[in-house]
């Protein structure tokens, strides 16, 4: 893919990067403390883990509200609209093309940060997995209020199972996600983008009309 000329492009705004890393920290901390609560390992003890987990969990809920606000006021949500276009090509690329040194079928640009596979993954994450985790976590946390809120039909073991399965799913996502970061044109390219905001992108990349976020 090194035939085109590379151009340094600003892809991720300051808030996006801040949010990304804040959320990373939160999720890592929630995973660690959550699995300590579950007793998978013993590093900081049950009691401390519960306190940390609940504080960070609630903080994350509040911070997520800011993110939702941002994504709608800036129109960035359009970057997550799913599409089936070129999806097959992207899947084919990761399954085969990448090993042959083929170029990415949908390279990144300022107006199109995510390829179709990413769009779908992140949409599922932001629309399904994380909200379910937040709702189940919030319910778990507010167990003592269920009666007052008329939620007596709820069952703590069901809530905990949902919360736990999602925790495992988030961990799986995290593993895959960290690995995918290394698949840029250089191993460190995507990482640099999320740290500094800038990524080298082929200058002659044509952003097709369907990819552009409409303004």
């Amino acid at each position: 893919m090194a035939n085109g000329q590379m151009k340094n492009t600003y892809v991720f705004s300051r808030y996006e990067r801040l949010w990304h890393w804040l959320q990373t920290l939160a999720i890592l901390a929630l995973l660690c403390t959550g699995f300590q609560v579950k007793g998978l390992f013993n590093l900081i003890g049950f009691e401390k883990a519960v306190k940390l987990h609940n504080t960070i969990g609630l903080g994350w809920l509040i911070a997520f509200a800011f993110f939702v606000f941002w994504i709608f006021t800036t129109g960035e949500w359009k970057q997550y609209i799913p599409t089936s276009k070129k999806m097959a090509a992207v899947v084919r690329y990761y399954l085969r093309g990448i090993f042959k040194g083929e170029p990415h079928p949908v390279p990144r640009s300022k107006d199109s940060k995510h390829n179709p596979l990413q769009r779908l993954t992140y949409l599922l994450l932001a629309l399904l997995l994380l909200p379910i985790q937040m709702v189940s976590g919030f319910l778990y946390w507010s167990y003592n209020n269920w009666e007052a809120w008329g939620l007596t039909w709820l069952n703590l073991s069901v809530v905990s199972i949902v919360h736990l399965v999602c925790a495992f799913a988030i961990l799986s996502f995290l593993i895959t996600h960290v690995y995918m970061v290394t698949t840029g044109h250089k191993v460190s390219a995507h990482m640099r983008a999320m740290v500094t905001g800038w990524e080298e992108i082929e200058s002659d990349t044509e952003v097709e009309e369907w990819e552009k976020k409409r303004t």
Partner: protein
Amino acid sequence: MIAILRRKLPLAGRAGLPLWLILLMVSSPGPADDTAPGRTLAQQAVQEYEAWITADHADMEILQQEFTSGPEVTQACLSCHTLAAKQFHKTIHWTWLDPNADPSERIGKAGITLNNFCISIISNWPRCTSCHAGYGWKDASFDFSDETKVDCLVCHEQTSTYKKFPTGAGHPVSKPTVFKGNGKTFNPPDWNLVAQSVARPTRQNCGNCHFRGGGGDAVKHGDLDSSLEHPDMVLDVHMGEDGKNFDCIRCHSTTAHKVAGRAYSTPAAPDRRSLLEDDELPRIMCESCHSATPHVSGSKANDHTDKVACQSCHIPTFARVIPTKMNWDWSTAGRKKEGKGVIEKGPTGKPSYHFKKGDFVWEKSVVPEYYWYNGAMQTLTAEDTIDPTRVVAINMPQGSKAEPNARIYPFKVHRGRQGYDVVNKTLLIPHLVGKKGTAAYWGSWDWNRAFTSGMEQAGLPFSGEFDWVETKYHYPTTHMVAPKENVVGCSECHSPEGRLADLSGFYMPGRDSYRLVDIIGLLMVIGSLLAVIVHGLGRLFSRNGQGG
């Protein structure tokens, strides 16, 4: 990259400020005050307590006369306190029967309910009734309506010299007498001295009987023994002499001689009001003084008080000073060597075998067992049919998670082996206390005669065939509340093998897990790991690896 980071940081800090502020607000429980509100409340409730009176009993001529027996003193007391005996006659301290049960069921220790210590009072009256606040209950013919038979002194005298003789049916001795059971000499009381000393009951007064239930110090309850006569705050935060120095009646509020406390079948906690809401409330419950949300506001412990009794966390172990009896096997009693009864000492210094009673196990600093408990106990009587193939619960805490009044509550569980009727499938009452030549076990050393006599005196059938059965008896643990530093930690229950491992029917984080969920979860995680490893290796050894 570091330079970039440094350049960005102040901005990032500014942008992130509201977030961190919110995080801080959520996480800090409020002003830096670590005094739990429930503690402050309780301290206010018990400030400046001074029991003042307007009469000195030493001045009273009627108490200066010559007395020769307890009932004579009682008569003198009643000449002023004309209602006292009438009041006392109505209380459980006098009747030893469940006030709420139908009298024909004979529920109560004066009736046919049992335990697994000396099993029943019936046929053993003179010994057991040395702890009756009365005089002369030596057999079934005792007159419960005789006001002069009330023993005022045992609860009210303050010299600590007044001792009822262990087999005297509630009477002290009239001349110095040796009790063969422990070789101690009992002296007749100085009646004038003890009569003139009377005051409100102290720990010593209540402890005369309640620290020595089962016939000896620390035998029965585990959370009540003579270490509470002069406790420090580490043993009991309320009674500690270096602290508030509570007497028993500070919490066991008393009206008209009726002492608040547990009953047989009445739930002890019908409502959860505190003194702030009703200052006439008996102070018997923790919540009466400490409120239902006693911990620092926002702490998880406050969320527990609707399901977990205060005692469960605040009494980490019982019998912390003196070992208590945990097991009693009657079936091995009667061993003699060269005509003399065998007595063996165990590791705690207490007897592990006694020829009159069998094998014992004593334990110190015992971790309680936990049950759902609504304050009511179901008790077995000597009439009830048992299943001898299982451990027989002689009494059983009542309650379940579904009941709003029930809490997880700590218990001492005393286990044992005792006689049962093989044909009728009932527990048996043995006649134990008696001299040589009587049917009593300690006179005849013949269980068959002892059971026949005991059951006959209870008016119950005995087939003549007996065997031994394992039993257990539950005592609610409520005294020996430890300082907050020694409270039971979260993970002692929130762990798979913790204190609540045996309580089922509800999900508890840290304790419970579902194998299937865990397996699915781990497969997901391991699957992702394997996938990225394989993919990464593929890239490393292909064109992508070389080209990149």
